[in-house]
């Protein structure tokens, strides 16, 4: 049994490594293309590595399934990892339609960030609570995740379009927004870096704080910047909080989550600052020249195509399968639980995207911004709704 679990995590590491190498090779293939116009072999090597990586990750998935006795989509780590895998799968599908190497250079790093982010959550195999014990768990979760992967590709294409097209000669609202999007991705890396660092240092500090009539304790794994309301540090030699988290933050461990957020953005800001210092221009402006040979029309088409493919899958997995399962497990197919509402919001958003595109001619830049916005909503639903807004779906 333990053996299987070990194989499983080795496979995930392998996949991670292969995706990383594939990213670099995709990067090289772009440079190649700039020099000589014919199709290079590097692209083929990169996509092959990606496929082998996907197979490794599938092996992770299957071995973990066997080891735990249920589909490994039952907690935040498992679900986010699966989302990373879906994004890679969706990328491979779209790659074989359009054969665009640049997609890999953007899609794979995002998949890597997602998988690394997933690994920051508890990774042990956990038991399924009664409400999750149903074959609908993997029917529903895998289709939703697949659709989010496909919609993720539309985000990637949208991002490429924006970086390619937005005028970087002078500062404007548009390129500031674009930097903000890029900054969010860097903040995710900031989260991963700070978590990993203090994990290695084995940092822990415990606070006691009053909640109603009871006294609760919370264990911080990052040095406390924002402590719980009226919290008292009880670990010796640990850093006391600089200030208290605002009182309107409610829910279990809200202050700790707020602290993690501060660390992520703080580290993200430092990273971003360093990158800017080295590049001496906006990140968007630095990437732009790499994309000059990309046909914007084609990228725009991919943005749209990915939404066109992903939207029906999302409807099926995120609304229809979800409703069927909710009817079986909770006696109602729709209950306005925050996660359900945000699935509906996502669906409305992409419906608006399609109507604007088809009937009002929102192409190119407008459409790309929408693709970015849609993926932001998906991520919001995955991260904020899971971790912050309590509900039936909350994993942590």
């Amino acid at each position, binding site marked *: 049994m333990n053996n299987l679990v070990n194989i499983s995590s080795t496979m995930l590491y392998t996949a991670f490594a292969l995706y990383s190498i594939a990213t670099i090779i995709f990067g090289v293939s772009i440079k190649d293309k700039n020099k000589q116009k014919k199709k290079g072999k590097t692209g083929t090597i990169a996509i092959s590595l990606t496929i082998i990586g996907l197979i490794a990750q599938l092996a992770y998935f299957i071995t973990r399934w066997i080891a735990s006795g249920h589909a490994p989509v039952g907690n935040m780590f498992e679900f986010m990892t699966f989302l990373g895998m879906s994004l890679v799968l969706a990328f491979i599908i779209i790659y074989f339609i359009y054969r665009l190497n640049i997609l890999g250079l953007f899609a794979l790093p995002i998949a890597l960030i997602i998988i690394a982010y997933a690994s920051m959550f508890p990774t042990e195999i956990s038991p399924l609570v009664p409400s999750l014990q*149903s074959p609908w768990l993997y029917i529903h979760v895998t289709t939703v995740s697949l659709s989010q992967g496909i919609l993720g590709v539309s985000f990637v294409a949208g991002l490429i379009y924006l970086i390619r097209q937005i005028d970087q000669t002078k500062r404007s609202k548009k390129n500031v927004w674009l930097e903000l999007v890029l900054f969010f991705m860097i903040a995710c890396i900031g989260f991963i870096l700070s978590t990993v660092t203090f994990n290695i240092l084995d940092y822990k500090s415990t606070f006691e704080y009053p909640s109603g009539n009871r006294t609760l304790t919370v264990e911080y794994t990052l040095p406390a910047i924002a402590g719980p309301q009226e919290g008292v540090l009880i670990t010796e030699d640990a850093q006391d909080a600089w200030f208290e988290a605002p009182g309107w933050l409610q829910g279990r461990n809200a202050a700790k989550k707020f602290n993690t957020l501060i660390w992520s953005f703080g580290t993200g800001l430092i990273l971003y600052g360093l990158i800017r210092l080295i590049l001496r221009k906006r990140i968007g402006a630095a990437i732009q020249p790499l994309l000059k040979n990309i046909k914007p*029309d084609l990228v725009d088409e991919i943005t749209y195509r990915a939404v*066109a493919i992903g939207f029906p899958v999302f409807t099926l997995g995120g609304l229809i399968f979800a409703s069927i399962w909710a009817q079986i497990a909770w*006696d109602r197919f729709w209950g306005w639980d925050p996660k359900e*509402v945000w699935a509906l919001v996502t669906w409305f958003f992409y419906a608006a995207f399609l109507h604007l595109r088809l009937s009002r001619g929102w192409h190119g830049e407008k459409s790309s911004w929408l693709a970015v916005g849609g993926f932001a909503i998906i991520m919001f639903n995955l991260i904020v709704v899971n971790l912050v807004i309590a509900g039936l779906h909350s994993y942590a």
Partner: protein
Amino acid sequence: MKKIKCECGHINPEGTVLCEACGKPIEENQHIDGNDKSKLLNMRYDGSARRSLTYNRSIIDKIWSFFSSVKVGVWLIVITLVASSLGTIFPQEMYIPAEAENRNPAFFYEDWYGLLGKIYYQLGFHELYSSWWYMILISLIGISLVICSIDRVVPLHRALKMQKPKRHETFLNRQRLFSGSKNVSSKEKQQLIENLKKQRYKVRNEDGHILAEKGRFSRWGPYVNHIGLIIILIAALLRMTPLLFLDEYVWVREGQQIVIPGTDGEYYIENKEFILEAYDDNDERFKDAIARMGGNVASNYQTNLIIYKNVDASIPGAEPKLEKVVEDKVFMNNPLKFDGYTLYQSGYQQNEFSTMSFIIHETDDPEEKAIDTFTVDLSEPETEYELDSGFRVVIDKYYPDYVLEDGEPRSETKFPRNPAYVFFIYPPNSKSPEISFIGIGKNIDATGENKYKLGISDFEMHDVSGMTLRRDYTLPLFGLGAFIFMIGVVQGMYWQHRRIWIHPKENEMLLAAHTNKNWYGIKKDIEKIISGTNIEMVVDQQELNELDKKQGG
């Protein structure tokens, strides 16, 4: 009605933008689709007349135009989207957490979230999704769906039915994909037709003018999916009627047999056993995770039960005559279906007291030897107990779920989870009672002068299952709506309507193509079709357009 005659002889209805027969732009209507400002023709609905853009006189025309506008539709979607997300800022009324001190929404939101919570409550956002304005938003979307669909499906149907292969030259050269090729031999043209057929295009020929078409059915996708959505909205409307939708909740003790509410006394439920199982804390696979979660992770909630039918339910006042319908296990993700009803395992309460036995002994007897005993049945406690020894016990106060709040005794719930009593004990031949307060771990003599004392000698406990009963005749309708929606959305999104026109001229052959989506795909098609011929590859005039714009400014 005003008709417009095209130079090709076809008579078009008022409001037509492109001649239905030959596709030639109709001069005076070019502003409708914005063709006057663009090199390329707007091919939406093939330029046929749409009611909403044609008539704008009466109120009905105005309402029709309003709702048929996609702009309005998108605004409605966006407003609903924002409104929906507002409802997740704080929990909805039904999700107020159980640990809240006061679950009354009038207090809860302010208690937990301060001023923002108070505003949230006062705006009615705690029941946002059943508010009148949210309902109106949804109905407006519904109206927009119906009108939009009718407004477009009629002209589209006309346009697609009437398509003629022979098109005006302007129609071709103002398409996005266009090329003109000189010196095309008839053999090459034959080859072209063969290739088109190989690509599964339907080819029609009219005096050498060719129309090749595939995937036309995908054009109906949007209308099919809108029909699905309308069915879902109708189902939601029907679900509000009690006739089609029933929702009841019943608490049933182990061993108890009671009528199921909402079934008009027709069905009875008997709870044989409630089972709560937890994962083994030492389970090799899960022990790390269980330890992190603090142990005791539930693995199953289950009720073993029997459903009975009262065959005499129609006779008023008759004793129920029960016949067993089904005996089964109900657990999470495994509800029980019987006679159109569905029964779910929804809640449980462990360790309620079913009976409690007491002894009476003398206060100063160190051995606490029982003078007499009595038993209180907590499902229906009697108020008075006459004992053989001559003692009489009266229950003065009974708290099923005792708590002391601000010095006042009170019952938290009506369920016997922590029973406590004030007993009046009348010793034999005595008219004045001794008063005792007794509960779990509490035995208080208020006066300190009692000669007799009570003690709890025994008790029995049971679990209680919370079961939800549902009957929902609207489910099949929801299912049908969802199914039709999926068909429509897949039909519209995964297939495309591709058309290629060929227009022979004296020594030139014009080729133009249009698709409603996936331009990359149709270009690939054309590459294959012209391979082995001398025909020029089409030029993407939109790309050129953008290039011009860039270079120009």
